[in-house]
């Protein structure tokens, strides 16, 4: 008895390959808010990268003949008290926001990743001690901690980055540690130990890559928080200093004196901050939904 042969076209077994555009479209349909956030993030990055190409004016040059001009054909978003174009300063301000936001978020989250995994890996007294130190840091609200650091180090872009980075470390370390604790029990970690690998190699090459999902989620949420913190510190006069274009600084210069007589001075930088933070938060939420298997299956 012979078995009838069934002709199978191998192409039918493999799901049809979708183009990148199709995949993106599908993603946008599943995560419309995340897509909107992503769009804001991309637009902001483009603004920051091409600021000198798309800006109509010099962001720092005073032009007193045009001081406090309302929005119009020459100055779409108006000018500030020094006659500087607000749109130009918002575009250049994206550079400052992203530079501070990404630097603080990447450094803070990465340091938190390494420390969190190390804490889980070593366990015991080291873990206990390290987590109590993290508890101390986390007991302070983010802005208070950042204010304290700036008060000690002084204002300026570099110190603002440090001030924002420090409070991020324990936040990320705590989240990453909980994921790393389960990974520690998986046999490949024992296998790596058995092969005689050092602690650093096990932590960095074998454990850390397996907690990238929570790391990325924290990272995106940190960028939004860092932009807001930078703006807050600049608003309080403790962050980036004039004449560097920065959104919080623009808000600080305009909010008190010109809120009534020239509302465009504080309103547009305020909108830029709101939109950027909103965009990064939506994007981060969407990323979390995509990377978290529990949420993905719903």
């Amino acid at each position: 008895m012979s078995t009838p042969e069934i002709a199978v076209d191998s192409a039918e077994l493999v799901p049809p390959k979708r183009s990148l555009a199709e995949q993106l479209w599908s993603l946008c349909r599943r995560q419309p808010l995340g897509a909107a956030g992503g769009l804001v993030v991309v637009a902001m990055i483009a603004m920051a990268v091409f600021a000198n190409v798309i800006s109509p004016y010099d962001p720092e040059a005073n032009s007193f003949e045009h001081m406090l001009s309302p929005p119009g054909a020459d100055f779409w978003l108006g000018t500030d008290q020094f006659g500087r174009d607000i749109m130009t300063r918002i575009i250049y301000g994206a550079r400052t926001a992203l530079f501070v936001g990404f630097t603080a978020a990447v450094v803070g989250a990465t340091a938190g990743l390494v420390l969190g995994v190390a804490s889980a890996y070593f366990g015991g007294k080291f873990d206990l001690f390290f987590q109590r130190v993290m508890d101390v840091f986390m007991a302070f609200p983010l802005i208070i901690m950042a204010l304290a650091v700036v008060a000690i180090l002084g204002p300026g872009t570099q110190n603002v980055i440090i001030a924002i980075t420090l409070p991020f470390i324990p936040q990320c370390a705590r989240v990453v540690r909980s994921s790393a604790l389960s990974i520690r029990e998986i046999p490949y970690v024992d296998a790596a130990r058995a092969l005689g690998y050092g602690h650093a190699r096990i932590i960095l090459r074998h454990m850390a890559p397996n907690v990238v999902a929570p790391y990325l989620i924290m990272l995106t949420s940190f960028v939004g928080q860092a932009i807001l913190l930078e703006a807050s510190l600049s608003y309080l006069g403790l962050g980036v200093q004039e004449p560097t274009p920065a959104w919080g600084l623009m808000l600080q210069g305009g909010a008190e004196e010109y809120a009534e007589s020239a509302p465009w001075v504080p309103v547009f930088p305020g909108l830029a901050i709101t939109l950027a933070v909103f965009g990064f938060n939506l994007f981060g939420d969407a990323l979390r939904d995509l990377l978290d298997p529990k949420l993905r299956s719903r």
Partner: protein
Amino acid sequence: MRFNYRSVAAAVALGCAVGTTQTALAQETPQRGGILNFVVPSTIPSYDAHRETTFGVIHPMAPFYSLLIRVNPANPASPTDFVCDVCDGTVPEPTDGGTVYTFKIRDGVKFHDGKPLDAYDVKATYDKIIFPPEGVPSSRKAFFSMVDAVEAPDARTVVFKLKYPSGAFVPALATPFNWIYSKKDLDEHGYEWHTKNINGSGPFLFVQEQPGAFVEGKRNPNYHHEGRPYIDGFKAIQAPKMAVNLQAIRGDRAAAQFRGFPPKAVDDLVKALGDKITVQTSDWNCVLLTTINQNRKPFDDARVRRALTLAVDRWGGSQYLSKIAIVKTVGGVAFPNHPLAATSEELQQLAGYYPDLEKSREMARKLLADAGQSNLKFELNNRGVDQPYKVVGTWLIDQWKQVGLDVTQRVQPSGPFYDTLRKKRDFDISMDFNCQSVVNPIADVTKWLGSAGNNFGGYEDPILEELYDNLAREGDPAKQRKILRQYEERALSDQAHLLVTLWWNRITAHRSYFKGWKISPSHYLDQQLDNVWLDKSLM
């Protein structure tokens, strides 16, 4: 020959561009009663005015104290009109070739603890100010460099003996920080006691201070100026943020703020409150400077310093900055409009004041190139106070950028800013100021001397010192004026030691029901509040 300050009084009073509503203010009959609330955009470092230099002490605390003499509260705009406070009669003319001033002390003046105030209290006070023991700070000691001795031959007489006649002496006496302390307090409690305690003889009795919130005072029924004060008490609310000050006045939580507001803020208040708000303006005896650290290269090179001043468009800056900041008048080392100050024509002979801006900037670029500093980068140390520091700082950076300089700004809160400027001296160029109370150019211009205690430029200039010595000893106003021009040219143009940006412009806005207070060229002056009153019909 001595400087006759009275002889120029009328001219100066006319010269000072002061006030918009003072005529109306002077004519009304004061009403009694009511509590005056006002805002103070600062905090109180200590209660001891002899050591302090800020209005943060004067505004809430001056009503508790008396002075030997003071600017005339009826005419505070005049820099030469002084009247007795605890002294009797009028300010005395000097004797012995202008070297002896004898004051009679008024009868019936009492400290708030009940002890009568006499000549020994005045002597003890001025000994503390002029000849403080080592380690006891006295911010105005240098004002009295001409004083040889203070004597009290009896309980009603105080004699000041000078080393040489000086027109700067009487204005220095009237400085509003020279509060009269009780000798008993100084003897029993020491020189630190007044930093935390109050026992004055002023129009108001101290009730309480809630640190960081307010200071409260009530009417002194035994005040030595009969019938005063008119109000029952006051509350000085501490609110460093300008927005809070404005909202307090707008919402009638406070009737006044005595330091001043920027023009835009005042415009908004007037727009919102109409005739319920009264605006007064005056030239301000405050000038915003930049101190160049000559201990650092290349700022020890006069060519670089001259380039820095040549780059600045003061005439244009005055026109534009006066719309957004509390600065306005272009001036030299002396209070503008004072008879000793430079005229516009004289100023235009100095580097940085030339009428042709492009030519100035071309000269600046050439000087920088000659010094090998065409691409000079440096940091401007600035104070974290918007008006006028940050606004003028941002403007200056743009001015320097026009000649190819690359300047960043380090803005610090007041404490660290002063530390950088005065103690650490780790700055390239720093914002600085020369704010004085009584207009007294001969004393005020000492700021430019490298040897002055409040000069942080790190330089020695014997020629300038000699010019000042000649100025201080010269009694003839015409000759003083001539020497002052030489001094100014040396300090601002030839050596460009400290750069003058613009002189401040004082604009105050207060509720119209608050009356009797007149603007003066200094926010330190005339703050005892014994002559102010509240018009209940307008409340």
